């Protein structure tokens, strides 16, 4: 029996390896189409059409957070997770694409911007704003990267469990074998391989490599997610039986509703979290790749539907896991992998599902690595040494060098933080930081009275309030029991509410009491009404 299991899981591993090899091939092909210019490497020569735009933006916004994190959170908190994140995101993300994304694309195209710092620096006529924003944006992208890297490591181990029992044994705290993880590829290897694959196609293919890979990966994770949903529900005796098992257990029945699991104020104030997409630097870069404003249309309309297609199966699998395992799984992040491994007994299909999970994770990692490389090249190196100091070829190599450094730092941080980090909560903190900067981008594109002092004060207040609340939550988490799942709430609201209020209030008050921007600056950034 054990030999059969091991053989099956080796097949799963082989399928994952084949998929990863395909990504390497994609990296080589996209590198062959590379035109050799910095504009091509960093924004695909602004040539991306509707379909690639939809797939790359959706793939970028869906990460380990959406698959591994949502399933784990639904396992512990129930169906409310969908309303907290997925349905709010469907409404708010598209609103941000429509109101902010198209405008930033137009401004970026008109003035040739490649990064957010370049835009904000000129919009507010303040080099200092660029210097303040750069470390904050990089500092917020890194936890987001970690969500993906840690998620990848935690997903691979249970899916490949049984493959190498002698090489990678896994034990419970009491010393007995942990069957869900025993013999699986340990997170330090899984995380390392994923980082290397993404590094390869981004390094050689630039943002074109990322856009192509995102498209392939989005197709893969949507299809495999639906297959996983079908297979798992079938193994559990059908849709009705699977849900009935949850309803019949007193300790899990509450997960079919929200009472006692999600508070009203918490549920409502989650609406601020999806505003984060307005300030994601990697999404900013994707917006700039659009061939025309029309490239956004399909994304704006289909994005909410795609979110539903990915999140609904994950939430259902999460609550079914509660019915199947009971409330006994210590690490909720491993729930999706455990469900696939214990219920889907077709090895190649398990492997494909594993590849799908990794696809979702990698489709965000690539854009994040890419945007950090771009920001470092444009906002630090070129800013200090001048636009004409380097050739296009040198700029590309500087970007690549920094991408390599960030991959290494992310991997080392993921190794340190992997144990005990709840992917969903880490993701929410990261999104909260970006969301709190939303008033800045909104004011930049719509409020002519927003001033340099207002912008700088708003960013400083955001950074200070976010840091205080984040550190408080981390300290509080240390006193909780392992596996205990409590989010920090302030007056029953999400902390993002406080941070975004402080950010917006500071921006408005300071702007109103300081000198307005010059008419030349406003003429540059606001289209005249005709």
């Amino acid at each position, binding site marked *: 029996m054990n030999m059969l299991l091991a053989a099956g899981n080796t097949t799963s591993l082989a399928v994952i390896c084949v998929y990863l090899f395909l990504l390497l091939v994609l990296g080589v092909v996209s590198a062959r189409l590379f035109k050799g210019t910095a504009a091509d490497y960093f924004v695909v020569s602004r040539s991306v059409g509707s379909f690639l735009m939809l797939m790359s933006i959706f793939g970028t916004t869906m990460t380990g957070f959406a698959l591994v994190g949502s399933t784990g959170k639904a396992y512990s908190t129930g169906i409310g997770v969908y309303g907290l994140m*997925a*349905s709010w995101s469907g409404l708010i993300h598209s609103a941000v694409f429509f109101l902010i994304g198209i405008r930033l694309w137009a401004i970026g195209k*008109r003035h040739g911007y490649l990064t957010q710092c370049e835009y904000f620096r000129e919009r507010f006529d303040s080099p200092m704003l660029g210097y303040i924003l750069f470390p904050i944006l990089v500092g917020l992208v890194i936890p987001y990267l970690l969500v993906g890297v840690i998620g990848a490591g935690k997903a691979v181990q249970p899916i490949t469990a049984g493959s190498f029992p002698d090489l990678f044994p896994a034990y419970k705290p009491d010393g007995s074998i942990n069957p869900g993880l025993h013999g699986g590829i340990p997170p330090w290897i899984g995380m390392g391989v994923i980082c290397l694959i993404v590094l390869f196609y981004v390094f050689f293919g630039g943002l074109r490599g990322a856009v192509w890979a995102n498209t392939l990966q989005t197709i893969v994770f949507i299809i495999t997610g639906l297959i996983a949903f079908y297979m798992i529900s079938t193994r559990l005796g059908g*849709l*009705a039986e699977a849900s009935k098992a949850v*309803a019949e257990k007193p300790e899990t029945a509450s997960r079919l509703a929200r009472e006692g699991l999600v508070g009203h104020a918490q549920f409502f104030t989650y609406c601020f979290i999806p505003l984060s997409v307005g300030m994601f630097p990697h999404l900013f870069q994707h917006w700039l790749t659009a061939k025309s*404003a029309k490239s956004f249309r399909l994304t704006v309309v289909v994005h909410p539907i795609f979110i539903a297609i990915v999140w609904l199966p994950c939430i259902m699998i999460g609550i079914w896991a509660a019915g199947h395992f009971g409330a006994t799984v210590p690490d909720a992040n491993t729930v999706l992998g455990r469900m696939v491994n214990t219920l889907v007994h077709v090895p190649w299909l398990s492997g494909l599902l594993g590849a799908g999970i990794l696809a979702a994770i990698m489709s965000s990692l690539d854009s994040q690595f890419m945007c950090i490389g771009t920001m470092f090249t444009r906002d630090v190196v070129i800013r200090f040494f001048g636009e004409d100091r380097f050739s296009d070829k040198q700029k590309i190599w500087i970007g690549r060098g920094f991408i390599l450094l960030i991959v290494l730092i992310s991997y080392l941080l993921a190794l340190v933080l992997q144990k005990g980090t709840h992917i969903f909560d880490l993701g929410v903190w990261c999104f909260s930081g970006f969301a709190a900067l939303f008033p800045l981008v909104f004011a930049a594109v719509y409020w002519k009275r927003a001033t340099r002092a207002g912008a700088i004060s708003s960013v400083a207040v955001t950074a200070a309030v976010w840091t205080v609340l984040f550190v408080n939550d981390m300290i509080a988490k240390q006193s909780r029991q392992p596996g205990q799942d409590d989010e920090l709430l302030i007056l029953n609201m999400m902390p993002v509410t406080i941070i975004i209020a402080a950010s917006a209030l500071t921006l408005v008050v300071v702007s109103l009491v300081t000198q307005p921007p010059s008419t030349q600056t406003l003429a540059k950034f606001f289209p005249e009404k005709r």
Partner: protein
Amino acid sequence: MARYTIWILFVAMFLLHHDFWYWDDTTLVLGFLPIGLAYHAGFSIAAGLLWLAAVKWAWPSELERWADEGDAS
């Protein structure tokens, strides 16, 4: 006018997101889908339709012209 209608619908959807009436309801729609989840799945589809209407009737075509007037690559 179309733009105002879209934003009024947006505010209506924003408010309808908070379905307190299904808060403690564990009814399974079609025998498997918790009713609170079914409501929010429908909400996602409605959001897609809202944005379809926005793209059709409130598209900012003036921005595209403005972007093309610039000389940057």
